[in-house]
């Protein structure tokens, strides 16, 4: 199909200096919105919306399918769960805690999926960090302070990532094979480390030691309701003003920027999410006594999200990951060291999986020898893909991992509420994954056909 843009490459002869390309005629932009992200050409909110719907029809839906999926899952489970408990405050907090491990694992996988690689080892590499940390803080053996245990656990994971990344980049063994071997080897290592503890095979986080408490609180500790409000307001104010100032500066200097109304809508959306999250978490969710406040796990997950988003979207390293995923030859000719960027991506993937592993042992209240690493790995990849990250590299954002993890957590939670056994959870999750991949490949096909 002929592209509307072909005839637009007019090269005007002997004219004085032309205005930069960004100042496109607005009517032309609205007509031609198919190829271009709408935020880049739209001059007003109406045009932005028209451009956006045109893109969705063209198969470039972004996070729309996963958001629609989340709404659908929430509506269905709310309607059919016993006494409509799915959207109760207590269950939403619970759902977020159950999803946290999947969300962080999916964000870990994002680094390597963007390169067109895969890391299958995260399902045991992540828990390895948790097991190391739990063992190190045991009062009757090493009794390390919690922070030292966490640092050592994450450093061990960095070592795992560096080793796998080096094998993949220097020996040119496919990542699928290296990390599949890693998956098996680390499973063995986890069992060995589990055997070192005071309760062989089952180190737990239950006890009087404050170091045990801190690791246990990663998932279950709550921030005081008042502090939650203040912190949320400060964060929203900082994010909002940064976003506003940046867009205003870009509009002033004639750079590509969204219309003012869209910036306001974005800021209002961030504020609304912040208010809803804190309000829901501050509802007393205990049957007896009080249990309220934002659980620590929420700022931990959002912190990982924020730092990795900054790294991927605002630094050279992040730009190179996208470039290598899009066209390795272009990246190589641009003087980028492919081996170094790839190795670092595997290191960051393992370290992020390690953070997920710490949350995992915190969630379980300890570690045991029946960690289901296979399921964790598959859910990590599935969550990233459900969220909209492409398996073919170059396309995807950290946000996709976050949303995909929430979808998987939502299914897990809803099936549990319905009293359905684990086989149904597997089947439904598998179907959701299929739908997500189908959407990905259909959108690619219509994009290339268009």
């Amino acid at each position, binding site marked *: 199909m002929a*592209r509307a*843009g*072909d*005839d*637009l*490459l*007019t*090269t*005007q*002869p002997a*004219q004085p*200096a*032309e*205005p*930069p*390309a*960004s100042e*496109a005629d607005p009517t*032309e*932009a609205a007509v*031609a919105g198919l*190829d*271009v*992200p709408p935020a*880049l*050409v739209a001059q007003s909110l109406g045009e932005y919306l028209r451009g956006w719907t045109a893109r969705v029809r063209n198969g470039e839906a972004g996070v729309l399918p996963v958001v629609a999926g989340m709404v659908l899952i929430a509506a269905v489970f709310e309607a059919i769960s016993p006494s409509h408990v799915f959207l109760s405050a207590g269950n939403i907090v619970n759902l977020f805690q159950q999803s946290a491990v999947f969300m962080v694992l999916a964000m870990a996988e994002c680094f390597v999926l963007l390169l067109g690689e895969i890391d299958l080892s995260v399902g045991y590499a992540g828990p390895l960090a948790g097991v190391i940390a739990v063992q190190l803080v045991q009062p009757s053996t090493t009794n390390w302070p919690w922070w030292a245990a966490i640092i050592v656990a994450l450093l061990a994971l960095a070592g795992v990532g560096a080793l796998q990344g080096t094998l993949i980049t220097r020996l040119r063994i496919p990542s699928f094979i290296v990390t599949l071997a890693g998956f098996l080897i680390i499973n063995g290592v986890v069992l060995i480390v589990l055997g070192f503890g005071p309760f062989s095979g089952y180190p737990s986080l239950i006890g009087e030691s404050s170091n045990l408490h801190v690791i246990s609180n990663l998932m279950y500790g709550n921030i005081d309701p008042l502090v939650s409000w203040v912190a949320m307001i400060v964060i929203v104010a900082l994010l909002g003003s940064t976003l506003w100032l940046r867009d205003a*500066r*870009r509009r002033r*200097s004639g*750079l*590509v920027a969204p219309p003012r109304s869209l910036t306001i809508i974005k800021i209002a959306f961030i504020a609304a999410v912040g208010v809803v999250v804190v309000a829901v978490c501050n509802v007393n969710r205990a049957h007896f006594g009080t249990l309220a406040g934002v659980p620590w796990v929420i700022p931990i997950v959002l912190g990982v999200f924020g730092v990795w988003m*900054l790294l991927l979207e*605002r*630094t*050279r390293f992040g*730009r190179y990951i*996208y*470039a290598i*995923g*899009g*066209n390795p*030859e*272009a*990246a190589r*000719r*641009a*003087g*980028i060291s492919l081996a170094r960027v790839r190795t670092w991506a595997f290191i960051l993937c393992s370290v992020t999986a390690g953070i997920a592993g710490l949350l995992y042992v915190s969630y379980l209240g300890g570690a045991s020898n029946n960690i289901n690493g296979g399921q964790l790995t598959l859910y990590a990849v599935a969550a990233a893909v459900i969220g909209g990250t492409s398996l073919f590299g*170059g*396309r995807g954002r950290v946000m996709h991992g976050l949303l995909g993890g929430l979808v998987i957590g939502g299914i897990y939670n809803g099936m549990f509420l319905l009293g359905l056994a684990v086989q149904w959870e597997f089947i439904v999750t598998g179907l959701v994954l299929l739908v997500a991949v189908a959407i990905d490949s259909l959108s690619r096909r219509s994009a290339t056909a268009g």
Partner: protein
Amino acid sequence: MSDPGDGAGGEPLLKVRGLDKHFGAVQALYHVDLDLPAGQITALTGDNGAGKSVFTRCISGIHPPDHGQIYWEGRPVHIRSARDASRLGIETVYQDLALADNLDIVQNMFLGRERLRRRLLDEDAMEHEASSTLAGLRVTTVRSIRQPVGSLSGGQRQSVAVAKAVMWNSRLVILDEPTAALGVVQTKQVLELVQRLRDKGLAVMLISHNLNDVFEVADRIAVLQLGRMVAEGPVAEFDRQSLVEYMTTGASSREVAAGAGGGKGA
């Protein structure tokens, strides 16, 4: 040798003398001489396998030559890597363009040389600079420079690749078959862009075996045949028939206008 003369001060920007290159037992280039003067488009032509690509790679640092000397503004230089070449101001636009489809125009133009501010990417500065480069080349038609390159037409992609090459104060731009994959209208647009590079005083080496393109824009023509430079001179010394004869047989029976065609025997 017929000195191009009308370049800057007589001395060509890049001068190649006696360049040899072989791969194993295969001799790809034999004692190749070539001048690339500033402000002129030199078309390098030749049949498939004549050595055009190997020659290009020799002067852009990908395959350093075995023997021979390269002079840059009269000074002897060694170009051992792509980085050496770009340090001198030599940029090559390969046929496959080497653009990442998932990145936008600005991101592609600055790939590998991103501007930073407080250790983060300085998108504003990069966007300003990219749009002024495109405006300077009068590539005014891409709708938004924040458009992913994958959504551009073939001619637009070629323009972005050329703009990327000239943005770095480059002084010699090598274009490898820039119109090979393009339709008529887009070919015309790209050739106009190539002429604007010349008008800006850059030396341009246009690799092409499309005779229409060559006679439309070239100031000088150089012909490779089986690794030897069989003819080199101003475009007036050639016509279509003689050029085809040089490309296929390495010699021409015809004498064209200014005479002296094919002054450079192997």
